[in-house]
């Protein structure tokens, strides 16, 4: 089914400047796989060399962190949105 993935500002140079991308998927993992197959330049910005999501990349299904759902295996529905959000933090 078709699901929308929202792309944050810093990753848009790698998604042809699109702020959202339609993907075909049954799970969050499939959605991300379809996303990087459509926009291969995104891969290294989302995943480390071992294929895992980079630690600072948060992926949310609607308003839920997929780490607290079933991670990549989390099922998606047609009305769902997936949002990629790099973390914002720091300090002195």
């Amino acid at each position, binding site marked *: 089914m078709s699901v929308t993935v929202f792309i944050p500002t810093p990753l848009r140079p790698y998604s042809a400047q699109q702020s959202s991308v339609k993907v075909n998927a049954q799970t969050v993992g499939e959605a991300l796989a379809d996303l990087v197959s459509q926009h291969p330049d995104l891969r290294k910005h989302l995943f480390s060399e071992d294929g895992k999501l980079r630690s600072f990349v948060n992926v949310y299904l609607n308003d839920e962190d997929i780490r607290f759902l079933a991670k990549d295996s989390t099922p998606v529905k047609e009305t769902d949105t997936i949002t990629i959000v790099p973390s914002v933090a720091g300090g*002195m």
Partner: protein
Amino acid sequence: MTLRIQKDLLEELRQHGEETYPYECCGVMVGEFHQAEDKIVKSVIRCDNTRTDSPQNRYHISPVELIRIQRESGLAGQDIVGFYHSHPDHPAQWSSTDLAEAHWTGCSYVITSVEKGKAVLTNSFLLQGAEETKHFEHEAIES
């Protein structure tokens, strides 16, 4: 490289740092990207500092807040253009922690030094490069 922000919005984020002193404040700047690397800030959105374990020298913005802001700014035809935080009793310069935990390339990271509860200096730094080559460059603030 210039961050354009109206005086009242600049004052708003500086005041936020005074209000949370001696803890760090944090928030998001929403606006528009204009040619090259110039940005115009249209609004400043206060966020909670979720680093309640060490708020005097760390900040973190909840991704849920970021998603909400990203969604609402997109509906208004705008974007997240940067972030701000304060350095209580510390210079308005980025730290190694600031760089290590900065991941929004192309966005501005604004830092205000707050000395004894009073906002002093505000600087803006543009995050450039990819994750492995990222670095901050000082950028002008025009208000």
